[in-house]
């Protein structure tokens, strides 16, 4: 197995403009290195503001890192020209927390799905429609949904549609930025299962970004815990869960709400 993605010492600084005084510099990424093997899942876990979304944007070629290197299929992509980056972008797709904000509300499901095909492919009307139907059934949606607006779908269906749209270009890497966080518990489980099925059938590689350590452990082959722009701990899920080394991992673990119930807790009322 080869590494699909390799990131080396990635740094991203933003400058914060202030009305008075000198501009402030924010270090969103302070030297991040990792690699992801083909067909596996790396989970990046951390609290808000730890830099995990900036990392996603850098990898997806939507943001240029201040320094450091990103190799995608043995090719360095962070320093490429815009034109070449556009080609890479097709192969790395992003899925966000709330897909409702990333769909045109006046477009039908069919229009949403065929846009990426129309932009890149040379499929014609009928072919395009059958491809859209195929994508829908791939993510467990019924093909007769094509005429609906995205606002008529439930949260889980919308997230399925977002996945279908991302798959339209047959990407090699799917970045899931808090893709399950806004969903109900039972729907989270459905989408998590779908992601695992797709990984099995398409040999897809995932970067799963989340603050939910339980779900990360469930989906990932490896977990990296981030804090203040750096990876503080990385390893197999069972190792992270059972022998957390860093303070931040222990805090995240303690904060996972659990269903186990100790009777003494309600005694006081």
């Amino acid at each position, binding site marked *: 197995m080869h590494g699909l993605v390799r990131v080396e010492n990635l740094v991203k600084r933003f400058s914060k403009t202030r009305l008075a005084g000198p501009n402030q510099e924010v270090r969103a990424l302070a030297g991040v290195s990792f690699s992801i093997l083909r067909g596996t899942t790396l989970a990046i876990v951390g*609290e808000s503001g730890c830099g995990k979304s900036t990392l996603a944007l850098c990898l997806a070629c939507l943001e240029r890192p201040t320094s450091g290197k990103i190799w995608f299929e043995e090719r360095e992509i962070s320093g490429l020209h815009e034109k070449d980056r556009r080609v890479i972008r097709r192969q790395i797709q992003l899925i966000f927390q709330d897909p409702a904000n990333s769909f045109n509300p006046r477009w039908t499901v069919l229009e949403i799905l065929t846009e990426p095909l129309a932009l890149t492919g040379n499929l014609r009307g009928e072919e395009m429609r059958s491809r859209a139907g195929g994508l829908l059934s791939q993510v467990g949606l019924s093909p007769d949904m094509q005429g609906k607006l995205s606002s008529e779908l439930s949260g889980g269906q919308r997230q399925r549609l977002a996945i279908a749209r991302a798959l339209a270009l047959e990407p090699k890497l799917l970045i899931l930025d808090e893709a399950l966080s806004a969903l109900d*518990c039972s729907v989270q*489980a459905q989408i*998590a299962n779908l992601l695992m099925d797709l990984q099995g059938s398409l040999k897809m590689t995932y970067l799963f970004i989340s603050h939910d350590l339980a779900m990360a452990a469930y989906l990932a082959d490896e977990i990296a815990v981030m804090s203040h722009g750096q990876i503080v701990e990385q390893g197999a899920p069972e190792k992270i869960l059972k022998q957390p080394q860093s303070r931040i991992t222990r805090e995240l673990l303690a904060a*996972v*709400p659990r269903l186990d119930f100790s009777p003494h807790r309600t005694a006081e009322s």
Partner: protein
Amino acid sequence: MGAILEVRDLRVAYRSRGGVIFRALDGISFSLEPGEVMGVLGESGSGKSTLATSLLRLFHANAVDISGSVLFQGQDLLQAEADELQKIRGKLISLIFQEPSVALHPTLRAGRQVRQVLAAHGMNCRSALEKRTREVLGRLFFAEEAERIARSYPHQLSGGQRQRVLIAQAIACGPSVLIADEPTASLDPTTQMETLGVFRTLRKSMGLTMIFITHNPALLGDFADRVLVLYAGRVVELGAAQDILVSPKHPYTRALFQSIAPLFDTRRDSSKKKLPTISGDSLESSLPVAGCPFEPRCPERMEICKSREPGLVNVSETHTVSCFRYESP
């Protein structure tokens, strides 16, 4: 002890633009004792947010067919005069919304937004307003932090701090009932735990009666006294928190609990094992016309479930379920 809040057969429906009627709440009844915390469990579309706002008679413009009663200390809020109701809202019964960044005014400092609540309920002496605001914020923040928070605009605060400001607004007038609609849903896990801690402390120090609405049963574990499970606008299960969280009876509640990823279940331990899910969804279009609303998705459905809707049955003194499985023949 008499109930402080009693809801009887509450029904609210929404009319969509196409004229289709969607029954968001379909006959909800429960009562709350003073000082009790009731967790309301429900997923999107179950009617949980409608329940939160309906208790204060805050209805959407397209709400139709409102019936039933909400008795607060014996007074029916659905029938009360508008000015009387205004005295109760935010003073005796407070509501905390889900999204703190939307619920706060973006161009007013946090302290002023807390003062506004007090002023709206008749406090007009400047020094008293100042004093009470400081006191309330002092309950929610460290003393040295409270001053700075009061002077900050919402965008200068973190999500957890904004949520605390909302809580400050809600408790400023010393209410007896607090309704919180997914108050921690948009927060980080660690902040979520902190905020839950705040609710727990307030409950103890102020003796608040609370309705805590969430989609995550795991949050209710060491907090709620009783749990009400909502599905498609109906109460499917209601009982002591311990009964429901430890041994849920309704097939929906059980399926919901199973679908949560257990913390120590990693993929390699359980290679290719899938999370148990509930098939289908609870969109209005997939609800059955007759019979139990959960029937199409229910793994334990029987013949009778299609024909009529089950009533609430007692499975123990403190636990009721709406399922034919538990009806004695």
